[in-house]
């Protein structure tokens, strides 16, 4: 869409850094899905260590009063 290109091409320092960050997000879907699964698994290993030990009781005891 030319209109959006124009907005982007006006450019700024902020946008340049945004562009770089987004290069990774346009990889082909399948490759990134497999990659994502690997990434998620390595993160899950760390989250396993992070999570409270007795999940069911911990969640049960989280009781709030209503707010706005």
């Amino acid at each position, binding site marked *: *869409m030319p*209109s*959006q290109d*124009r*907005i*982007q091409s*006006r450019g*700024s*320092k*902020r*946008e340049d850094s*945004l562009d770089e*960050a*987004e290069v990774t*997000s*346009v990889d082909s*879907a399948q490759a*990134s*899905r497999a990659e*994502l*699964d690997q*990434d*998620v*698994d390595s*993160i*899950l290993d*760390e*989250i396993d260590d*992070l*999570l*409270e030990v007795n*999940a*069911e009781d*911990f*969640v*049960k*005891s*989280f*009781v*709030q*009063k*209503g*707010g*706005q």
Partner: protein
Amino acid sequence: MSARRVMGIETEFGVSVPGHPTMNAMVTSSHIVNSYARLVGLDRPTLAHWDYERETPLRDARGFDMSRSDAHPSQLTDEDDSELGLANLILTNGSRFYVDHAHPEYSTPEVTNPRDAVLWDRAGTVIAQRAANAGPVFDGQKIRLYKNNVDNKGASYGCHENYLMKRATPFAEIVRTLIPFFVTRQLFTGTGRLGKGSEGQRKEFQISQRADYFEVEVGLETTLKRPLINTRDEPHADPEKYRRLHVIIGDANLSDKATLLKLGSTSIVLSMIEAGISFGDTLDIKDPVRELTRVSYDTSLTHQLTMSTGASQTAIEIQFRILEAAVSFCERQSQVDGDTREVLHLWQSTLESLQRDPMECVSTIDWVAKMSLMQGYIRRDNCSWDDPRLALLDLQYSDIDPTRGVAAKLEEKGALTRIFTDAEVDFAVENPPSDTRAFFRGECIRRYPDNIAAASWDSVVFDTGGDTLLRVPTLEPLKGTKDSVLAVLDASPTAAELLDSLRDPP
């Protein structure tokens, strides 16, 4: 048109002590705020007062005042809570940190752009965590704080956005465009929730934390019969010129990019409304309250909303319509600021990614980040959605302690994108933004803490030991900036000298 305007975020934190589910939340919340007061040396009685003189929570943007006897007690926020012993602080960064009902709440100082909103919102999370670290210990457990909106036992609490608008804009126009925008912006503002129904009865994943808690389209309440559009009309500024749009429908976001897009896109939509841009009947949704839930329940993003015209559109299509109108409006302007360009760019790339594969947003959009972890558990451990660890993950995603929080862990691993460094956030913990009246407020608290009798968004009340208190009104959000008051502050070692200079400018 711009993403820039005076804005702010209020966050009510979930509060609990493990093993003590029945502990009084007003007490634990007060502990949090008072602990922070001691930590930063603001624990003096003079600073415990909020100046309520101009607060009018029962004024309705539709033009009538509710009578006080008709109001539910939880709507009466201007009764002086300090008499109940509920803590209330104004901090050197210009923010308010206090107990609201049964939650610690942090309200950012007024900022002028969505990036600063992200920064001072993050500062609030750091402030709250420092308060918890410095707080009391019960049977070896400190108070824990959560940046979320539900307990899955029926309670919901808010993360509200505030936008200063021109008073002249007709409220009906605001409502008409905002309803379809709000029903569909969950696609990027949702923080994700494992559980459907007000008590999370069904163990299924949905996009938004808040969607199950709205009952009407427009209304004044925030705790009962919650409306998509809240009409509370309390500008904290000159009421002839401004209205403050109080948005109660959003989720508390952990992702910086999600917060940036939430505030930025909403501000852009408001500026289109202020400019008189109308979508006619093309975005009118037939039953917006029910569609809010349906959009939230549909992680495939294919649900067709029924429009008033009889047509049907997906949430992404509605968002693209609004974005395209914003871009074309932007095109007609001779100059577009960097904040607006950044938000339009992020908005567009986010919608395009969501349309291709939501997982492309795994490092920027909270519900996608959260859902990908849950799906990871299900795949790796061959478990189901009702595995208790997934419910725990849902909760612990929002634990604000960086040693326990799952979102914080994702940030540490680079799997959730941060916008600001720790050093930048630390600056915002201590300092106000330079370009709003929050600068004057915050600097007065820092420089003259013993002489501030009370403060609020639109006033600072001084006590310099005389017979009367002196109230300095700050009704213009864009006055009292660093440029306009730093010299007089620097030239005034005492509050009395400051007041002399303000009364009789040199």
